[in-house]
């Protein structure tokens, strides 16, 4: 990935939500309490997510059992250890008191320790198996979701992507899916084990001493309140920090992107001044956010220590009164630590769950989007297509409320050339999109050889068209494979022939590796003109009956432009062609000119007829080719 894309995708990611701050070992780190966004319908989303987990329910139940079992085993530990300590203490006291036959009962202690070793080992094994199962499930669910999203991309109507930035879809595949994966992998069972720990510890504490247990319980509301207090604070500052970070990033991007202009207008001082203002604000919110999120851990540690001390004093007093044993103090000091840990993480976990739900909701929404109109039940096939195209009273608008093509009709004979002209941004590609059935007309029909294109199978219909657009699309593979993309079954020989027709062969041999040269990820290792020739070769190989060409060759040098022109002429021979025209010669030779302005077809006819009509075409033509511009300096 280029740094460029990296930078921007990272930024958009940040804008949408703060980094989750997973710790280096994969666990949620201490910084993990950002301003988590929330799902609109938490329950429904979770229900859907659980549906995805259904195939794994046996594994999940086993994992759940293992999680609880492993927790329980660990929780038994301190109590048994306490017993061993008590025994140790009793033996010792007896010995000092010179009680006859007194001594430390190593047999008893040894047995307890052996039992504990067994428990701990089993617990570790269970915990590992649980982790193993969960990570397998998480990874498989992730794989499934990604696959579904990828397939969905190909089934959605192109229209869907009009309002949906690619970055967002991309973030479904990466960020959103990752978040779900992480939650399944860690947080979900962390919640289970936390609950099991709290309940288990409570039971153990009550069996030892109800007084001490009750005192320990006091810690819960205190720590909860503290946590809530801190979180509310820190979230506020986190949001602020995120905002100011956004502002400052925006300013930096703007200034770096417009560096030349900034310099040309001596804007350095002004820019730095603005930056300083933002930077100061960022600093203020940043340290506060950092500080408040940072005191979470010490606070919880403080509560833990407080509990520890209280348990020591209270336990000591109770021991004197012979209510509990010495070992019980030890057990309690350990339980109190078990107890505060899940409480400290509770807030974090809620945040994680919420952002997971939000991510899942975005994915499910995407997967639930309406797909392309289904294929006709009885598709018509056209053998030996001639290439006649007819528009019959078509109406169309990207937004149904605002039609931009109103009652347009035209008959095009096989082999004719249709030029589409108009200023930049006039919507010249609309016709292309309708022809290819990327969009369906609102009313009327487009016919190919007299057949409504909606009665054809989409695949078959699109197969009769060849498309060479200005926005060349090549992928990260060899030149040969990129050409072969036009017809996957083509032999190497056929690829070379097509390459010759499209003048690719001429430059390919000068490239390192020739046809085997791998285009890099941005296809920036060949020139724009060469890219265009490659897409022409691809269309040649596809050998379509009907062609759609974009003549625009804005960033191509003169010589290559001539090659492209020639290659296009080769390609057009004997085919019905729709050309997004920029060249006068093309326009004048066209059988039909469609003039577009602001998205609408405003005029149609041939060159002579349109000039005589003295309409938009005439003024367009005149302004471009007659008013000479460089009078500018002649005043």
């Amino acid at each position: 990935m280029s740094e460029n894309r990296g930078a921007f995708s990272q930024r958009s990611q940040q804008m949408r939500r703060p980094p989750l701050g997973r710790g280096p070992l994969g666990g949620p780190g201490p910084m993990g309490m950002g301003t988590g966004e929330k799902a609109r319908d938490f329950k429904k989303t979770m229900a859907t997510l659980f549906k995805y987990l259904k195939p794994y329910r046996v594994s999940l139940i086993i994992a759940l059992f293992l999680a609880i079992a492993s927790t329980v085993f660990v929780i038994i530990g301190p109590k048994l250890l306490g017993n061993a300590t008590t025994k140790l203490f009793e033996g010792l006291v007896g010995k000092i008191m010179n009680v006859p036959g007194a001594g430390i009962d190593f047999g008893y202690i040894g047995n307890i320790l052996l039992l504990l070793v067994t428990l701990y080992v089993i617990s570790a094994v269970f915990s590992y198996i649980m982790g193993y199962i969960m990570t397998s499930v998480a990874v498989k669910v992730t794989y499934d979701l990604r696959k579904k999203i990828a397939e969905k991309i190909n089934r959605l109507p192109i229209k869907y992507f009009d309002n949906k930035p690619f970055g967002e879809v991309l973030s479904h595949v990466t960020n959103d899916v990752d978040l779900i994966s992480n939650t399944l992998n860690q947080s979900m069972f962390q919640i289970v084990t936390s609950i099991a720990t709290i309940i288990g510890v409570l039971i153990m504490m009550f069996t030892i001493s109800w007084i001490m247990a009750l005192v320990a319980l006091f810690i819960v509301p205190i720590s909860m309140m503290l946590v809530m207090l801190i979180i509310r604070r820190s979230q506020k500052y986190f949001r602020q920090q995120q905002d100011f970070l956004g502002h400052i990033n925006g300013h930096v991007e703007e200034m770096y992107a417009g560096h030349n202009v900034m310099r040309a207008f001596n804007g350095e001082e002004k820019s730095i001044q603005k930056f300083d203002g933002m930077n100061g604000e960022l600093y203020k919110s940043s340290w506060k956010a950092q500080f408040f999120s940072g005191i979470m851990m010490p606070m919880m540690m403080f509560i833990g220590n407080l509990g520890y001390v209280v348990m020591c004093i209270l336990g000591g007093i109770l021991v004197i009164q012979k209510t509990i044993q010495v070992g019980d103090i030890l057990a309690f000091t350990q339980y109190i630590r078990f107890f505060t840990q899940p409480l400290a993480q509770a807030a974090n976990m809620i945040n994680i769950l919420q952002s997971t739900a939000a991510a899942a909701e975005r994915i499910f929404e995407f997967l639930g989007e309406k797909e392309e109109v289904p294929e006709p039940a009885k598709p018509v096939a056209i053998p030996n297509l001639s290439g006649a195209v007819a528009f019959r009273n078509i109406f169309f608008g990207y937004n149904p409320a605002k039609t931009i093509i109103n009652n347009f009709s035209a008959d095009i004979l096989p082999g004719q050339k249709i030029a589409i002209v108009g200023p930049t941004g006039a919507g010249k590609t609309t016709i292309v999109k309708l022809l290819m059935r990327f969009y369906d007309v609102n009313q009327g029909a487009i016919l190919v050889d007299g057949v409504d294109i909606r009665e054809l199978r989409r695949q078959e219909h699109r197969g009769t068209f060849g498309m060479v657009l200005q926005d060349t699309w090549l992928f990260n593979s060899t030149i040969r494979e990129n050409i072969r993309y036009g017809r996957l079954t083509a032999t190497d020989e056929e690829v070379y022939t097509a390459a010759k027709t499209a003048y690719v062969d001429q430059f390919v041999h000068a490239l390192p590796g020739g046809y085997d040269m791998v285009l890099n990820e941005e296809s920036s290792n060949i020139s724009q003109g060469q890219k265009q020739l490659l897409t022409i070769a691809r269309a040649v190989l596809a050998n379509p009956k009907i062609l759609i060409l974009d003549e625009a060759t804005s960033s191509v040098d003169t010589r290559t432009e001539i090659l492209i022109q020639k290659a296009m002429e080769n390609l057009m021979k004997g085919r019905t062609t729709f050309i997004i025209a920029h060249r006068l010669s093309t326009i004048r030779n066209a059988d039909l000119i469609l003039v577009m302005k602001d998205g609408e077809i405003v005029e149609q006819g041939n060159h002579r007829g349109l000039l005589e009509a003295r309409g938009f075409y005439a003024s367009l033509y005149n302004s471009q080719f007659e008013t000479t511009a460089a009078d500018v300096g002649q005043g």
Partner: protein
Amino acid sequence: MLKLIKSLKPFTWAIIFIFILLLGQAMSDLTLPDLMSRIINVGIQQNGIENVAPTAIRSSEMSKVLLFVNSTDKSIITNDYQLLDKNSLSATDYDNYVKLYPDLANGPIYKLNTTDGSEISRLNTIFAKPILIVSYIESGAADAALGQQIPAGVDPFVVLAQLPPAQLETILRRADSMIASLPESVIRQGAVSYLATEYRAIGIDLNQMQIGYMVRIGGFMLLLTLASIVCSISVGFLAAKVAAGFGRDTRRKIFAKVENYSNSEFDKFSTASLITRSTNDIQQIQLVLVFMLRIVFYAPIMGIGGIIKALGQDASMSWIIAAAVMALLAMLGIVFVIAIPKFRIIQKYVDKLNLVTREMLTGLMVVRAFNTQKVEEAKFEKANVDLTKTTLFINRIMVFLMPMIMLLMNAVILLIVWVGAHQIDAGSMQLGNMIAFMQYSIQIIMSFLMLTMVFVMMPRAAVSAQRISEVLETEPSIRDPEKPVTFPAGVKGLVEFQNVGFKYPGADDYILNGISFTALPGQTTAIVGGTGSGKTTLINLIPRFYDVTEGNILINHTDIRAVTQHDLRDKIGYIPQKASLFSGTLESNIAYGNDNLHDGEVIKAAEIAQLMDYVVSSEKGFDTPVAQGAANLSGGQKQRLSIARALAKRPEIYIFDDAFSAIDFKTDAALRKALKSETGNSTVLIVAQRINTVMNADQIIVLEHGLVVGQGTHKDLMNNCKVYQELALSQLSMEELA
């Protein structure tokens, strides 16, 4: 990297303070287990009796004890104790004392008369053995203790008191040698249990004493806990301030630096990379810095402190800690050695998955046009499977870590209990010390665990730090001269290129070579040529976005490198190919080059740039907001706004870099007419793709491969310049060119 570390200099004191606070926190945290061990050892086991030296002892008992004390020690004891006797005390004193020691009514009592810690500990050693001997004799083990038959029914002390000093001495020595074989803790415990009986006899409330001791130690623990959190919150506060401050300062340094970069540095780093370095990288460092300030200092302090403390409890068990730490490091080492290379592979697969998805999205139409959805899905499937497999592998290793670490810690505890139990049995350790040792071991292991996390984090932070340092260490290649001159008055806007050659820094080939021409005020000079011929490069040399490699560029007969960049750019109105506008309003953009613009001038610039239609049709007029990247304006509007901005500056030299491409033809014509009158006496340089744009220029310079291949008017060039003809023919038909 050094520069970056130097940036921390203003925070030196804060960092030192953080270190001290962390030290304080660690001391508090480390003292807690120690105190807990005292609660168990003294509070519970010794009934709250801290010292072997009695605080009060009946005179009768004292005389028994003194039997076994040599004469020097005896005098120390008599010095430190005060005899309380009913007869010699005043009435009020007696009333006070009898409350404390009810047995005073029955006989005189010795009271400890010093609070000096060292004196008491001296007394402790003096008293320990004699008290133990006395307690043995009293418990009926006199024979064993003295190695001498004492007749039944006879008070052994009376017998002993009557013995001649020499005989007493031998008995004493024998008892001493017997006791010497006992471990210190047993002596102590024995003495303390004697004291408990004695205190009870005096009538001291032992229960209250015990609870009082616990509350005292407990209170001390609470204070320490409080101290610990105060330290830790202060550290958090300082660390947050230092990190955020460091972030702020570094961010500013980088930004200010980059603002003065020339295009060469932008090319070197790429704009996107500079953005990441100024934003994300700094944010990264800031996060890591907080973590470092809090953990990296704390972990070693805790680790070392824990080791010292643990050794203080009992050195003989230290091998357990060493073994545990080794086991931990070995475990982490193995996992990381297996996992870290895979992490890199995962990153590669994630990139691949991103790439494939991106290709699917950017190629939406092409994919459907060629019906190759299945091909794309297969590509995605491969990337997905690769990623899934590797992730699964890594995760299965990583989930191994947590249970193992837990198991290790638990094993350490069990081992300590087992070994500790034997030590206690042998009397070389007390129960409380064992428990404290346990807690120190856990603290030590935890600090090692924290340190390894730091090592995992470090490489990532180091990359960011490196990237930031690179910017800080790169000086702008174009700087103002040390003694700048000013432009002479009189001439306005005369641009001369004298044999200019240019190549990009580090490149082998010249982009421009031997370029010489003069652009006169009041005239239009056009530069044409194919893509890559060097047109834009040429005009970028005028505002010094780059410096010439050879030759000179003069403005008003002055070399542009001799004046300040500020003065130079004041003379130039630059309209770039891609209209870069800044967020703000229409007005703020027009007035960007000239803050002191009055409304009339803004309107005039907008009128000439054909922008008034838009301004008038917008609800907020000139206050219409311009979004970042001017996303709310069309391409044509952006270019017109960019032209208005240059016009508002009223410069001597205009540079249009293919600036009309997005403006529709009709507006274009109107714009040109208006521009003609405005730019009257200025020098106009136009770079153009379209021949028709330049046909009427006073001078056309034709570039190819960085060389001037034609210079003259349209007519001249049509006759004598092949490149120009070719260019023209590809765009226009013969009759139009005539």
